[in-house]
């Protein structure tokens, strides 16, 4: 149109004169055009990598695979938000910040929530990295087995990212091929059903299982191995068996995959529950127990530090020379009271002390202070790497532990067969480790004074002998009115086979006597009532999972798949009203806020405002 006008105008002028100009101009243009008109505008980038040229060698495939792993440690995932900030710990804890009235941490999110937004974004960024790698996996000429390992790890990671998506967001776009153009039809992908996503996750993981190296070969927990794939397959199967799909057939798969891990005979529980977490803090691997973990690296400038222990450790912000921790999680009374006497896991998973002042000093919580206590599985004070960074360190985060596999086996087996000996034993293995049976054997559990004696002017020395202990128990006596009134155990000893003898000496008196009892392995085991029926056994397993796996960002989704999320949250809210101290009552917020829609997070606004093919989750 405009060009036409131009031409008409041109036409009006003296054409003869114009001809002359056009002739000269034309010949000039022709001259220059002849040279390299087309080539002149051809440029190629020389300082950036193109996906067209990359992925050409095995090492380039590995670099690309590292990029897929990298996302696990990003802020939106386990580098920060998936730990203690997205209310993934369900009924186990609450968000410490009393001024936080909105946001996902207190179940008062909206679709613009920055944590949810970041989580969604990083998951799909990770999926895209995997998609581009998988699309180019066959490019280099290389050893097929090694190619298979790369492919298996990438497939598994992509499936794992989708697993986080589908279990937290429900229906999501299932993108298995990177967008080929920026056009709306290529980037606005509609949601697939929850089943379709799960089926893809399951299928990809099954493929990966056949390709990746075994845990023994890999040798450490930071890389995907066959056991990790099998264990996560068991988890995926259980989630599929539960809400919202409720595909009961999947219990069989869950049992099969968990059993595969167990039957290898390679994996085992670390004798010490707390050592599992000290290992994370100190960058030590125990792939027998910790089958798969997210790796962090302490050097802040390398941008690979994580907030394990920083978000979910014991609050410490005053002393600049001690490790800093935001201590975002405080425990619920429900979790605290679920531990029975003798269960050593409680005082590791839940802080018995707090830090205050600078230099930081430990002060024990009183027996009445329960809700005040931080979740404390991950303790930065155990970190050994230096320098200590304020906002995180190199502490790894476990994604799959062997105890989880044992509990999943029991749960699946129970769903199929009711309480079987094998299933009960699997749970009891976990409990016995929790009670320290593998670490300490039987220990002195009580010392009762049978004869008080007379004439004691000072506390007599208590000597505990015999009983076949490898380490003898120790105790102190209390004297009142010349009589021994009580004996306090100061060390429980280790590996008693029978009750030891207790003797008193000194203190100026005579005649005191006491009798000791020792623990029994069976104390740690589930009671007969707990294993009486499939229903009671399931309840026992549900509780056991909380005791064993609390603060590992698994609980909320466990509650959801069991279909008890809302009832549980409501119950905890009531417990807050009844039991929490005035200062911690605010913690009820997440529990009173929780409603039916909270079984899923909303599709973030950043996505749904651009991708018109999506529908928002119910209630959001």
């Amino acid at each position, binding site marked *: 149109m405009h060009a036409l006008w131009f031409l008409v105008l041109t036409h009006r002028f003296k054409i003869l004169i114009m001809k002359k*100009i056009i002739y000269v*101009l034309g010949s000039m243009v022709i001259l220059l055009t002849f040279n390299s008109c087309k080539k002149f505008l051809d440029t190629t980038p020389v300082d950036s990598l193109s996906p067209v040229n*990359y992925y050409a060698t095995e090492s380039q495939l590995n670099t690309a695979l590292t990029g897929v792993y990298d996302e696990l440690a990003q802020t939106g995932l386990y580098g920060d938000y998936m730990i203690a900030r997205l209310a993934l710990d369900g009924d186990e804890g609450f968000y410490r910040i009393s001024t936080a009235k909105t946001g996902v941490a207190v179940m008062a999110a909206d679709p613009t929530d920055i944590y949810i937004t970041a989580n969604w974004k990083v998951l799909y960024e990770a999926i895209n990295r995997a998609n581009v790698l998988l699309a180019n996996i066959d490019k280099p000429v290389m050893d097929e087995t090694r190619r298979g390992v790369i492919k298996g790890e990438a497939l598994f990671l992509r499936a794992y990212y989708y697993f986080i998506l589908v279990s937290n967001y429900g229906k999501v776009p299932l993108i298995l091929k990177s967008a080929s*153009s*920026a056009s709306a039809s290529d980037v606005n992908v509609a949601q697939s059903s929850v089943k379709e996503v799960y089926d893809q996750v399951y299928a990809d993981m099954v493929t990966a299982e056949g390709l990746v190296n075994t845990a023994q070969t890999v040798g450490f927990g930071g890389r995907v191995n066959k056991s990790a794939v099998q264990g996560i397959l068991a988890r995926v199967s259980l989630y599929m068996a539960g809400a919202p799909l409720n595909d009961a057939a999947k219990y069989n798969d869950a049992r099969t995959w968990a059993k595969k891990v167990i039957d290898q005979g390679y994996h085992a529980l670390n004798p010490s529950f707390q050592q599992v977490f000290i290992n994370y803090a100190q960058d030590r691997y125990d792939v027998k127990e910790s089958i798969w973990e997210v790796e962090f690296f302490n050097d802040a400038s390398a941008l690979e530090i994580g907030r394990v222990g920083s978000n979910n450790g014991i609050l410490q912000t005053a002393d600049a020379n001690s490790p800093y921790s935001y201590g975002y999680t405080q425990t619920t009374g429900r979790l605290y009271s679920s531990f029975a006497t003798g269960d050593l896991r409680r005082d590791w998973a839940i802080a018995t002390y707090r830090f205050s002042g600078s230099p930081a000093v430990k002060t024990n919580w009183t027996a009445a202070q329960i809700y005040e206590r931080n979740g404390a599985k991950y303790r930065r004070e155990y970190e050994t790497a230096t320098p200590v960074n304020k906002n995180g360190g190199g502490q790894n985060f476990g994604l799959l532990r062997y105890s989880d596999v044992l509990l999943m086996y029991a749960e699946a087996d129970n769903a199929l067969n009711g309480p079987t000996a094998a299933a009960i034993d699997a749970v009891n293995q976990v409990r016995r480790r929790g009670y320290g049976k593998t670490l300490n054997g039987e220990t002195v559990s009580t010392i009762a004074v049978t004869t008080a004696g007379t004439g004691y002017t000072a506390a007599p020395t208590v000597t505990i002998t015999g009983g076949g202990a490898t380490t003898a128990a120790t105790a102190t006596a209390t004297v009142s009115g010349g009589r021994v009134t009580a004996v306090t155990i100061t060390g429980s000893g280790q590996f008693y086979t029978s009750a030891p003898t207790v003797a008193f000496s000194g203190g100026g008196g005579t005649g005191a006597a006491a009798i000791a009892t020792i623990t029994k392995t069976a104390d740690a085991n589930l009671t007969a009532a707990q294993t009486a029926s499939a229903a009671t056994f399931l309840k026992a397993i549900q509780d056991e999972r909380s005791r064993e796996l609390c603060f590992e960002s698994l609980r909320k989704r466990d509650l959801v798949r069991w279909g008890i999320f809302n009832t549980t949250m409501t119950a905890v809210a009531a417990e807050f009203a009844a039991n929490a101290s005035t200062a911690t009552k605010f913690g009820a917020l997440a529990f009173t806020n929780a409603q039916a829609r909270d079984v899923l997070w909303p599709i973030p606004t950043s996505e749904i405002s651009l991708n018109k093919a999506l529908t928002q989750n119910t209630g959001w």
Partner: protein
Amino acid sequence: MLKHNNKYYRQFLGLFFGLMVILSVPVQGQSRKTVSGNVIDEKTKESLIGVSVKLKSTNKGVATDAKGNFSIQAQAGDVLIVSYIGYDTQDVPVGDKDFLKITLNANLKDLNEVVISVGYGKTKKADITGSVAQANVGDMAKAPVPSFDQALAGRMAGVQVASSDGQPGAEGVNIVIRGANSLTQSNAPLYVIDGFPVVSPDNGAINPADIASLTVLKDASATAIYGSRGANGVIVIETKKGKNGAPVISYSGSYGFQRVEKTMDMMSAYDFVSYENELNPTTTATSYFTNNRTLDSYKDITAIDWQDQLFRTGATQIHNLALRGGNASTRYSISGSTYNQDAIIINSGYKRYQGRVVLDQNVNDKLKVGINVNYTSSGYSGQQASEAAKSNSSTSTLLYGIWGYRPVTGGDNSSLLNNVVDDAVDPQTDYRINPIVSAENEYRHTDQSNMLSNAYINYSITKKLVLNITGGVNNRTTKTGSFFNSLTSRGTPLIPSNTKGSNGSIYNNERNIWSNENTLTYKTTINEDHQIDAVGGFSLQGIHDMTNGFAASQVPNESLGVNGLANGVDDGKVTLDSRSKLQSYLGRVNYGYKGRYLFTASFRADGSSKFVSGQRWGYFPSGAFAWRMSDESFMKNITTISNAKLRVSYGLTGNNGVGDFSYLPVVAITTKSNYSFQNASPSQGLAVTALGNSALKWETTAQADIGYDLSLFNNRIDLSADIYRKTTKNLLLLADLPPSSGYTSVYKNIGRVQNQGLEFTVNTVNIKTNNFTWESNFNISFNKSKVLDLNEGQQSILSSVSWETNFNASPLYITNIGQPISQFYGYVFDGIYQKSDFNTTAAGGVGTLKAELATNGNARDVIKPGDIKYKDLNGDGVITAADQKVIGRTTPIHTGGFSNNFTYKGFSLGVLLTWSYGNDIFNANRLIFDGNARASYNLNQYASYANRWTETNPSNTLYRAGGQGPLGYYSTRTLEDGSFLKLKTVSMSYTIPTQFTQKLHMKSLSVTAAAQNLYTFTKYTGMDPEVSTKNSALTPGFDYSAYPYARTLVFGLNASF
């Protein structure tokens, strides 16, 4: 601060005027038969060469020489006719004088004969069909500023010039012509310097004294000849060339002072301690009420004035020297300049050394060749005031330290003055360090060298047909070095999050542009009625950008500064290399019939390497028509109208302002994408960073313009009005992608934006007598933008700025379809909760907030009297994100300038006022210093906050200590009217009479005084309303820790020999 300034001003003004009075005493001449004389321009006082001086009686005459002198035999009764092209002819009676000083007045009637550079040619002003504005470069050169863009504000309608802040040397001047087209890309115009088109040049490289003309092409008929780069307007700059005549040496130099324009009033020691006491009585008791001090003790203690320590009297020194001359075949111009400025903040400044050689040679009748070479070396230094040392933390900027540092301690102040950090500040959350120590120690240097060389060959094939070939090269290198030692905010080990120790970086950027333009021009007049001026051409341009450099941390030998970086630990390396090319065909035809009906049609085809083959070529046609009504018979007889012209134009221009390879997908290995396996140092990981968009193509702007030029009363009044509408479609937009794609954003041709506006310019000669003239220029521009379309289906874009951790995620701007680009967005401040807003407890105390009143975002039970209150727009009783709305406009309703020039005999006075009306500024400084939003302890506040809410002072504007409500809420409380009227430039000069200067063998000598940023009339409470520290089309008008503007006063000399 003002007091100091006034003292300086009075002293110098007194001296200046005294000198003028002495020099202006008239001198008597003597009588002889040979009459000699000197002819000068009435306005510029420059000697006029080749002026014809004839005896009226005999018609015999002579011409003035290179110094403007003549000598002629005459009798006392003779009358000399003095005439010169472009000037009024004068009859001068000889009388008894033997020396005649003749002043010629520029012929106002011939204003329309002024020739204007319009790109690929020159056109008489009378024949121009488009909207083209020419700056008064003479006036601009009088402003004591290093680069022309700083003197451009208020000079021309439709050209909006605004600086981000007063940081010296930094590229903070934003020029936007007729409103912003682009949302995410640059809106800067194209510069054409002596025919060489440059996108984003270093404007500091051009000495303002070298500029002969500066023309702004505004409408599409004027800019379409620059096709793909014309959409944001074009600024055409021609530098001074040699003139026929004997060599003329001209020198101008000035020296002057700078003081900070305004500082903020801070709390007194008493107010500060009393505030701390309200905020945190426990700590205050132990830290301030010791050493026998009570609150009242602080009434007698003087506060430390940190601003006084940071700001100094700056010094500006400017020298320009030029030698120009030539003969019929050779003309030359050699010029050089220095500019040296010690800026108003310690350890910051700017300097420039520049030289230019221009040579024009007529080889023969047909062939002319010439070369124009400019070399500039410049550098600026000093801490970037508005930049946060710690990523996005408000506590790590320079002015946070200055304003926030305590005015007093509980004891001896010396440790506060001397220590690097304030012990009473928590270094975990507040990164402030002693701002004086920081400013003294932070090393930041940017050194640039810039060489722009142009050569041309001009061959007249026939008298009417001329071939012009030009070639040019622009080499620019920028070296940036920074070093943060242990006494700086980024390097001190006293802030625990500083993990890098002493650190720094060196980056080198090299940009090479070459250009070749070939045009054929044909000019002819047929039958005296048909004028044709046609140009056609072909051009090529290439741009090559290279950057390399590295950063290092844990640098062991601090004393070596940047030169010791090699011993540090690698902290990131950069190597970038990118190229783009442009190939173009262009043509334009001007046709005039009887000078009355004027048509222009132009066409350009551009091919850019930034797009995929197949989408590379863009075509940009334009057409314009002008009608000189004043030449029509019906108007010819109206004597009051000397010129009347209607202009109508329409055309298309383009924009290719995206990355060189934005169309390609990219994968990258970055530190951030690494992963550590088995506790090893992280292995390299590959990130898939860009999707690329192979469908990218030109952005196109269609612009229609209607203009009217009117000159009245023999050109004493010259009016020009333009109305325009431009619509930009296929906007090159950095569009957000759905995150599920795995990408954040991609360049797309998407969205539409409309700008429409009105421009009005009046030039008047108010008074014109032999001795006194008064001329004025008034211009005003209105522009309104409207977003017509955004990214597929997107209704609005929310934008935030990064300045303070707790606010970074909150949007402050919204761009809605159907509304202007970027409006302020937030909560409506609704005063302060008063006691009466609360229930009374059984015990008679203050209970909870009454149920019928909305909360402020905090829980109802924690809100107290004195807390901030927001308007509950949706009436749901709680303040949530839904209670935000558009709260202000970011762009002015109108901007403009009003300049007045007065001359009386040898005196001249120029006054320029500029203004901006109707825009708001978000004064984020007040979030921190007029209410302490972060509730930081020991953070000083503006004096205004002493008037906050207390039990006894129930303020409804300032909340109580600690009553700021939830963090991260932007509200109208700190949104202020940013309208201003600035006394921008005042220049004075006195030309010493020729009688004296001739004795000194000088052609002319004048003494000058000039002042910049003298006074600002505004309601804005911050330092200066001309501010935009986070400037972009989507985030304008934000003020936090801006480098303040300086008031500059210089005195100088202009001399020519």
